[in-house]
């Protein structure tokens, strides 16, 4: 396979840098700084130290025996990113970008957040590194994830509710970019997913590839061979690309990205960017996008705030088009059923985002044989979602 992205930040025809001129030098500077520091062993050591001693890596690759047996003969493993400090894979990237910000001499960081996991991770790292932190969050999300808002405030961050557009993740991203345009001189934007203008999709992938690197080592230890299938949820797609990337050259390893079908891909209420989207430019890069015939971005819908996003990372669009990975939709209802199943078979409450990946495995595992090994990226824990789940199951609404 060709190495992506190229020097223009392109993954095939996707990616690139579609941003106001004011940001161009900042992005070029960021790319240069990232390349310089990542070639410096001391930089990587500093990150590795925090991932280990602070976040508790490596995370286990757990054989979910009861879930496996419930589903049939295939062996299902869970990569336990939920056991990270702050409860999700987001901390991997926040630590990486936070250290980079510090090396670049920045004292202020900003972030966008949907479910609040990336906001909490950024607020955490900002506290750890003694930096000032502002988190942009859609007003709608501040309501459905009130606990995470409080958590960020406890960590010393300022949470800025975003009232434009649909008041969810995409609008938080717009507002973070607008703020960055105004404060580009002294502010580092810690972007939380593998989206946005170059170099973010590449950088976030590289900070998240530890998920796949560990998984590769762990599965070889446990099984003496590589898995047949990797399954991960895709909103912007950072946990999925982190899991997939180290296996890219291993042709025997299949990859499935699971996106949110909300109330169904044939209703207007979904976030199935790959299944229903078309090529477009959104938040700084070319990728698949949910939009109308006039190129206006349409609102996404998912029970999971972290997947409630009309775009997707450009590398995923590329993997879809070259058919290296497959992308499938899972509905709110299917995700909830899978969430409950994992609770009762394994005693693990997964995040609603991760429950989408589990649901896909619930669908396909029964047809697989005892020789098949599946790894699910369990990207986060579900404590943050308990209230939403309660509301949904009690039929008080689905937000």
């Amino acid at each position, binding site marked *: 396979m060709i190495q992506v992205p190229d020097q223009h930040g392109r993954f095939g025809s996707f990616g690139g840098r*579609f941003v*106001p001129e004011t940001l161009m030098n900042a992005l070029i500077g960021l790319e240069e700084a990232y390349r310089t520091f990542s070639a410096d062993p001391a930089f990587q050591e500093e990150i590795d130290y925090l991932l280990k001693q602070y976040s508790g890596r490596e995370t286990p690759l757990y054989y979910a025996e009861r879930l496996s047996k419930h589903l049939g003969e295939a062996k299902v493993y869970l990569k336990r990113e939920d056991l990270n400090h702050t409860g999700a894979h987001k901390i991997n990237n926040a630590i990486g970008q936070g250290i980079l910000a510090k090396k670049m001499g920045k004292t202020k960081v900003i972030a966008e957040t949907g479910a609040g996991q990336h906001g909490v991770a950024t607020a955490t790292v900002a506290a750890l590194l003694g930096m000032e932190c502002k988190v942009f969050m859609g007003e709608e999300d501040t309501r459905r994830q009130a606990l995470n808002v409080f958590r960020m405030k406890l960590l010393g961050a300022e949470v800025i509710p975003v009232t434009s*557009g649909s008041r969810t993740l995409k609008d938080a991203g717009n507002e973070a970019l607008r703020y960055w*345009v105004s404060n580009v001189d002294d502010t580092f934007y810690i972007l939380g997913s593998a989206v946005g203008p170059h170099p973010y999709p590449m950088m976030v992938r590289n900070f998240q590839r530890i998920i796949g690197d560990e998984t590769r080592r762990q599965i070889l230890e446990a099984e003496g061979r590589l898995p047949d299938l990797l399954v991960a949820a895709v909103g912007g797609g950072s946990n999925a690309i982190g899991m997939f990337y180290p296996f890219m050259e291993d042709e025997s390893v299949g990859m499935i990205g699971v996106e949110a079908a909300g109330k169904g891909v044939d209703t207007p209420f979904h976030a199935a960017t790959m299944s229903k989207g078309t*090529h477009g430019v959104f938040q700084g890069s070319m990728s698949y996008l949910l939009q109308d*015939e*006039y*190129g206006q971005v349409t609102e996404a819908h998912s029970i999971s705030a972290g997947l409630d996003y009309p775009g997707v990372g450009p590398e995923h669009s590329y993997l879809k088009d070259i058919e290296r990975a497959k992308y499938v939709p899972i509905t709110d209802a299917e995700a909830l059923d899978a969430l409950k199943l994992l609770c009762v078979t394994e005693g693990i409450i997964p995040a609603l985002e991760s429950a989408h990946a589990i649901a896909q495995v619930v669908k396909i595992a029964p047809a697989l044989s005892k020789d098949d090994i599946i790894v699910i990226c369990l990207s986060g824990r579900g404590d943050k979602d308990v209230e939403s789940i309660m509301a949904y199951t009690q039929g008080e609404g689905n937000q």
Partner: protein
Amino acid sequence: MTTETTNRMDLMFRKLKSEGRAALIPFLTVGDPDLNTTLDIIRELEAAGADILELGVPYSDPLADGPVIQRASSRALRGKVHLRTCMETALKARQAGSSLPFILFTYYNPVMQMGLDTFFAELDKHEISGLIIPDLPVEESEDMRRRSSAAGINLIPLVAPTSSERIAKIVSGASGFVYCVSSLGVTGERSSFHTGIDAFLESVREATDLPIAVGFGISTGEQVARFARICDGVVVGSAIVRKVEDVIPLLEQPATRAEGLLQIREFVAQLRP
């Protein structure tokens, strides 16, 4: 700018140069609050002394815009105004007697969805002289530049106070004028500009023979006059869009509509350098 140009914008800058004055370039969000009103406002702006007009295409995710233009975009989108309707509005304004050069200000995605072939064919039919695409930096604009140049339409580049050594690359091969962004930030009225603004404008002036215009945040007659002394054009956007927003209640009532339009005209007239 070649001597045989027929591009209205180029001809306008040539005329202004001979008169020794700078262009007043207002910005309007097309379809805010509705298309007929936009046509009426265009007439008022021309009467108030506008020299060139920027027609803003409403977009769902206007990254380079502040709250005032975001709100105007939302209002226009509720009326289902899109790229094509904006072009049609330009043509209607022309047919109604406007002689203003029109610049279409649009984010890239609506253009991409229309398809570049169709887009350029339509531009030509709809009396558009120039294009501003705020999220298409020079690195991504090669195809757009080539097509614009072939179509005789000016693709107007933006340079920012942070552009520094990029300025030369951005202005080389540009046409129409160079749009200098006054400050770090999105569109919207402001009382102060980037501290190095004069040095920045001077560096752009040195890098190009094209006219230079300044915009983002310019909202008062005083500010227009300040920049008209050192630039060839001054863009006023959010302040006008806000004025339109303020008089929407007047525009909506037949009895007070003329008063609303008059207030817009008077606001723009006092901006005139």
